[in-house]
C-alpha cells in the first residue's frame, strides 16, 4: 500500500522506458544519428541540397548532349542511352527496395523477383483484361495501375505472412519456393495470359500516348526517375520511422526485442510488404519502359542478381544500392558490347572465352568485392578516409547517407 503512489507514477513511464530500450540494440547507431543530427545540421542541409541537385541534373539530362564514350552508348539525348539509363534507374529502385529488406531488416529473401514480376505482369495483364471496357483510356490506365498495386499488396501480404513464420535459411527457402512457383506459372502460360517463354507484350490501347514509342523514351526516362525518387523517399521514411528502428534492432538481436515486449513479426511483415510493393512499382515502370515483360524477371537468378547488386554497392549504405544498380546495369550492357567487339574476337581462346561472357566478369568481380571490399563500392570513401582495412560498417556502425 505504501508503494501505491510510487507505482502510479511508475506506470506511465514504463512505456517510455520500453521505447527507450527498444533502441538499445542499436543504441550506438541511434545515439550516433542523434548526435550527428544535432552536430551536423549544416551537413544534412548540404546532403539535401546535393541530392536535390543530383535529381535536377538527372531530370535535365535528356535535354543535354553529354557523351561519355565507353560508358554510354551515345549522347544523353538519344533514345538508346535514355533507355539504358532509365533501365538502370529502375534496377536501382528495385535494389533499393531489396536493400531495405536485406540490409535494414536482415531478411535474406530469394523471392524478391516475384514481386517485381507481379508488378510487370500484373499491369500488363490488367491492361489487356480492361482493353475491351468502354471507359476513357486514362481512367483504364489509372485503374489498371491501382488493380496491379492491390494485387502486389495482397500477394506480398500472403507470402510474407507465411514465410515470416520461419527465420534464417528456412525463410530464404520459403521465399525461393514461392518465387519458383510464380516463375513456373508464368512459363506455363495459363490461358495464354502471361505469354510463356515468349514474354508478355504491352497492350498499348489504353496507355497514354506520351509513354509509347521510341520518340517518347524521354518521358519514360522521367517516369523511371520519378519511380527511383519515390522509392528512395519511401525507403528513407520507413528507415527513419519507429518501425524502421525496430526492424534494425530485430536484425541485431531479435530476442532482446521480444523481451522488451515488441512483436518483431508485425514489423518484419510491414517491411516485407512495403519492400515488395515498391518492387511491384519498379516492375510497372519496367513494363512500360520495355513495352513488355520477359519471364527472366521472375527467376531465382534475377533475385540473385539483386543480391549481387546490393552487396556490390554496399549493404550498409542506402545509396550503395543505387550506385550498385546503375554500375551493374551499365557494366552488364557495356561488357556485352565489349564481348562482341573485334578486340575480343582477336584474342587467343584462353582470354577470349572468359572475356566474352559478361556474367563471368561480373561474378568474379562480385567474389573479389565480397572477399576484399566488404563495404562495397559505397564503402570505398569511408575506407580511404579512415585508412582502415576493416569492415567500415562493423567498425563504427553504418554512417548511412
Amino acid at each position: 500500500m505504501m508503494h501505491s503512489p510510487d507505482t502510479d507514477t511508475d506506470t506511465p513511464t514504463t512505456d517510455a522506458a520500453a521505447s527507450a530500450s527498444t533502441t538499445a540494440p542499436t543504441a550506438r547507431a541511434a545515439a550516433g544519428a542523434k548526435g550527428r543530427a544535432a552536430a551536423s545540421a549544416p551537413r544534412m542541409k548540404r546532403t539535401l541540397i546535393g541530392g536535390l541537385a543530383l535529381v535536377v541534373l538527372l531530370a535535365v539530362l535528356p535535354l543535354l548532349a553529354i557523351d561519355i564514350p565507353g560508358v554510354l552508348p551515345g549522347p544523353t539525348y538519344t533514345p538508346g542511352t535514355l533507355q539504358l539509363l532509365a533501365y538502370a534507374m529502375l534496377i536501382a529502385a528495385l535494389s533499393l527496395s531489396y536493400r531495405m529488406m536485406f540490409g535494414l531488416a536482415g531478411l535474406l529473401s530469394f523471392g524478391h523477383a516475384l514481386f517485381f514480376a507481379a508488378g510487370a505482369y500484373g499491369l500488363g495483364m490488367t491492361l489487356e483484361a480492361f482493353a475491351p471496357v468502354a471507359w476513357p483510356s486514362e481512367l483504364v490506365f489509372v485503374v489498371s495501375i491501382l488493380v496491379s498495386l492491390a494485387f502486389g499488396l495482397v500477394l506480398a501480404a500472403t507470402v510474407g505472412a507465411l514465410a515470416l513464420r520461419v527465420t534464417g535459411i528456412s525463410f530464404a527457402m520459403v521465399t525461393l519456393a514461392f518465387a519458383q512457383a510464380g516463375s513456373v506459372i508464368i512459363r506455363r502460360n495459363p490461358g495464354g495470359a502471361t505469354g510463356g517463354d515468349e514474354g508478355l507484350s504491352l497492350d498499348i490501347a489504353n496507355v497514354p500516348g506520351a509513354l509509347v514509342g521510341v520518340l517518347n523514351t524521354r518521358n519514360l526516362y522521367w517516369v523511371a526517375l520519378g519511380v527511383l525518387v519515390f522509392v528512395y523517399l519511401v525507403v528513407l521514411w520507413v528507415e527513419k520511422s519507429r518501425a524502421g528502428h525496430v526492424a534494425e534492432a530485430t536484425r541485431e538481436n531479435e530476442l532482446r526485442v521480444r523481451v522488451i515486449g515488441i512483436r518483431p513479426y508485425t514489423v518484419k511483415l510491414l517491411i516485407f510488404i512495403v519492400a515488395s510493393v515498391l518492387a511491384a512499382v519498379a516492375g510497372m515502370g519496367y513494363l512500360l519502359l520495355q513495352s513488355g515483360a520477359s519471364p527472366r524477371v521472375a527467376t531465382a537468378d534475377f533475385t540473385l542478381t539483386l543480391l549481387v547488386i546490393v552487396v556490390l554497392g554496399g549493404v550498409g549504405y542506402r545509396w550503395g544500392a543505387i550506385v550498385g544498380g546503375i554500375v551493374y546495369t551499365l557494366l552488364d550492357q557495356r561488357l556485352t558490347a565489349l564481348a562482341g567487339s573485334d578486340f575480343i574476337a582477336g584474342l587467343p581462346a584462353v582470354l577470349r572465352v572468359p572475356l566474352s561472357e559478361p556474367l563471368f566478369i561480373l561474378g568474379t568481380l562480385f567474389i573479389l568485392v565480397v572477399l576484399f571490399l566488404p563495404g562495397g563500392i559505397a564503402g570505398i570513401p569511408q575506407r580511404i578516409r579512415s585508412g582502415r582495412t576493416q569492415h567500415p560498417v562493423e567498425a563504427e556502425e553504418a554512417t548511412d547517407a
Partner: protein
Amino acid sequence: MSTLLLLVITGLGLGALYFLVASGLSLIYGLMGVLNFAHGSFLTISAFLGWEVGRRVSDGTWWGLAISALVGIAVGAIVAALTEYLLIRRLYERHIEQALVTVGLSLATVALFEGIWGTDPIYTEKPDWLGQTTEILGAKIPNDRFLLIACALLVLGGIVLFLRRTRYGLIIRAGVENRSMVTALGIDVRRSFTLVFAIGGAAAGLGGVLASVYYGYVSAHLGSTLLIFAFIVTVIGGLGSLTGAAIASVLVAVLQQFANFYLGGTGDLVVVVALAAVLLVRPRGLMGKVA
C-alpha cells in the same frame, strides 16, 4: 499397376540424382553452416570433363562410362576442395558472405561453361543396355534408372560407413552436433571442412556424369536445374541430416513424377508447395536437429 511401378521406379532414379547432390549440400550445411550455391557448378564441370574424357577413350561403351564416372568423381572432389580452400576458408564464421561467394562462383562458372561449351545441350552417347528397357510386372523400365539407384545406394552406404567407422567420420559427426566442443577438445575441425567439401563434390561429380546419362545430354545449366530441387530436398529432409536427405529425395522425386503424370505436368509446382507446407508445419524439416 504397370504405370504405377514405372512412375515409382523413375521417381527413385530421379531421387537418386537429387540425393547425390543433396547429400553434399546437407553435410556441408550441417558442419559449416554454408549454403553452397556453387554445388551445381561442381556437378556441371564434372559432367563436362567426364564426357570429354569418356568420349575420347571410348564413346558409348561401359569402359567409357566407367572412366567418365571416375573422372567426374575426381574433378568434383578436387574442384570442391579447392573452392573450400581458396574462397570459403577466408570467410569462416561469416555465413552470409560465404553464401555470397558461392553465389558469385556459380554465376561466373555457369557463364564460363557457356563460353566454353556453348549454350545448347550436347547430346551424349551411352552403352546400348542403358538405352533399353527391362520388363518388370508388365512395366517397361528404362535400364538407366537401375544404374542411378545402384550408384546412389553405393554412395549412401559409403558415406554412412565413412561417417560411422572412421576417425574423420567421427570428427565430422561430432562437428555437426557441436562444433565448438570439438574445437575445444583440441581437434582441428577445419581439416574436416575441406574433407566434407571434397566428399560432397565427389558425390555431385558422380551425379553429374549420371545426370548426363539420365537426361542424355550435358549443358551448362545441368547443375543449376538440379540444384534448386536439391535445395528443396535438403530443406525438407532437414539441414545437416544425411538420412533426411535420402528420404526426402525419394519423396520429392516420386511426388514430382506422380504430379507430372496425374495432374497434368504440375510436378515442379507440387514440390514447391510441399516445401512450403513442410516448412510451415515443421520448420526444421523431417529429420533436422532442433535449431
